[in-house]
């Protein structure tokens, strides 16, 4: 049995818009403007299984939000096909909306002046739930998301963390099978981020909701998603389990060296090694493991410095992702 929630095949999206031709007159610019075309998404394919937690990441302008908007039926693809829960989002937008939830971190869907409970009731009616169903679901969400302390407060008086919890709760009012989250933790402090991630994991475990999220926050990816799809310049760069992401992209290791006394000079390092930090009490050396093995690097460092302590560690996932983005320069 095929349990894919999302199937994307050869998906592309091009945007075209008029640009001002400086050498042409205003009449020509008005009536026959020069048209510039941008390939926001270029022939990508992937699928997502029911209940999966997928991070869809990429630098700004990579095409991730455009993809999410095509998956939810907001944007029409230029080419390729999408099937979300067996529906074509472009043709069955309304039907699909009953089965999915969306959270756009930078936009609010709640009614700002009214208490949160009014927004939840409002969305319940929008999703055609009966009054009884709405009441039961609100009670469930209040408990699950711990909304009780501010459910009767006007939305505009909520803190950002409270509001984001409310946003996610309201997008779950109709028990969607998939929730699409576009940068849900943007602007949140560490406590609010953790609380939101825990809640998303909870709904994934308890309600089996598929999670598809875009984020620039490595914490979201590491703690929430079992799989990561990387997109850059509209094309799919990698699609692999999140745990393997760091492992397969590690090109560097870091070595912290603490001196026996202090470092008075910083001699030139052999090929494959470079300084990341140069301080009297500590140096950090970056080891290019494509040029030199860790063992060889340590041996060479011990020859150069009188060492009290040494610590070897991998580059962070954030650095891995940054390297991945940087190694995919824009196509000409």
């Amino acid at each position, binding site marked *: 049995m095929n349990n894919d929630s999302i199937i994307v095949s050869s998906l592309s999206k091009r945007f075209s818009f008029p640009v001002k031709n400086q050498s042409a007159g205003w009449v020509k610019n008005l009536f026959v403007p020069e048209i510039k075309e941008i390939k926001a998404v270029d022939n990508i394919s992937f699928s997502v299984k029911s209940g999966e937690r997928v991070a869809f990441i990429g630098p*700004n*302008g990579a095409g991730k939000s455009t993809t999410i*908007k095509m998956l939810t039926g907001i944007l029409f693809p230029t080419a390729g096909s999408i099937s979300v829960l067996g529906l074509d989002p472009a043709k069955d937008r309304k039907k699909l909306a009953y089965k999915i939830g969306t959270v756009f971190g930078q936009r609010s869907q709640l009614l700002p*002046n009214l208490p949160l409970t*009014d927004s939840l009731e409002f969305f319940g009616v929008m999703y055609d739930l009966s009054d009884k169903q709405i009441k039961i679901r609100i009670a469930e969400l209040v408990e699950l998301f711990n909304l009780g302390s501010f459910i009767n407060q006007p939305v505009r008086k909520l803190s950002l963390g409270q509001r984001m919890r409310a946003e996610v709760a309201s997008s779950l009012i109709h028990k969607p099978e998939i929730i699409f989250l576009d940068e849900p933790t943007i602007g949140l402090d560490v406590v609010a981020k953790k609380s939101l991630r825990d809640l998303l994991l909870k709904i994934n475990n308890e309600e089996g909701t598929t999670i598809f999220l875009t984020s620039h926050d490595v914490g979201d990816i590491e703690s929430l998603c079992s799989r990561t799809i990387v997109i850059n310049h509209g094309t799919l760069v990698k699609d692999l389990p999140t745990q393997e992401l760091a492992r397969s992209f590690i090109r560097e290791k870091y070595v912290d060296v603490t001196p026996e006394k202090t470092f008075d000079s910083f001699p030139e390092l052999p090929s494959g090694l470079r300084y990341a930090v140069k301080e009297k009490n500590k140096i950090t050396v970056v080891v290019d493991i494509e040029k030199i093995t860790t063992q060889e690097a340590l041996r060479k460092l011990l020859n150069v410095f009188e060492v009290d302590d040494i610590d070897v560690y991998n580059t962070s996932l954030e650095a891995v992702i940054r390297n991945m983005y940087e190694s995919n320069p824009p196509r000409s």
Partner: protein
Amino acid sequence: MKAIRLAHKILRTLVRDRMYYPGRLLIDTFSIVARCGVLLVLYWYVFRLNNGIINNTTFIVAAWSMFFYFAFSVFRLRDISRAIMQDVQSGNIEVLFSKPISYLSYRMWWQVGEGLYPFLVISFFGAIILASIVGIPATMSTYVFIPTLVLVFLFGAILSLALYATVGLLAFWIEDVSPLFWIVDKAVMILGGSYLPVALFPNFMYKIALYSPFGASQFITHTVYGAWAIEWPVKIGIQIFWTFVFVIVVSILFAKARKKVSVNGG
């Protein structure tokens, strides 16, 4: 059924929202009293200079015509243009497109909901105050008045929403529709009788007010004129025609706009 339930929910929610903030009602009331009141005083003076009748129209008729214009304007149906434009410019349209609703009808009900409470309150108390100060014109006591008033109000509201939604939807192509909105809005104000009751228009201007969609959207101001009892079928017919035209235009435009959506974000 779902559409009716949602429309009812929108209206209830927004009326409650407006009732939470009575200050906004006071501002709306003050704005109407200031604009309509000043004009009524000026007209009262001008009519007095002309022995109480201009172009076969009495001051009572002119005052009620103007009151109907301002009461209708409290509904703020015109603001649907700005609401659509802001949805497009801010990218907020993606939130509404991700819901199981028809964007246009949702926006239209929303606009009605925004203006319903001030409209009901201001119209009710305004009508009582105006009736006690200037009296009631003869046409308002005819048997056709109430049913035709309701009809002309309904078609006027639908036409206004469709007309201004058309302007708003152009934001998908030209982003800032403010200049276009200004032109359309001024056409509606002038041809609807905001500055000068339509009964006092020169003949060619009256014809434009009669046959253009801008004037037709404000036919509620014609209901107090003496000829209304005879002319109402023609005027409601014109309103239905323009309503039909603009509902089609707005539907086609929206279908095209849906394919043109581009929202911020990479």
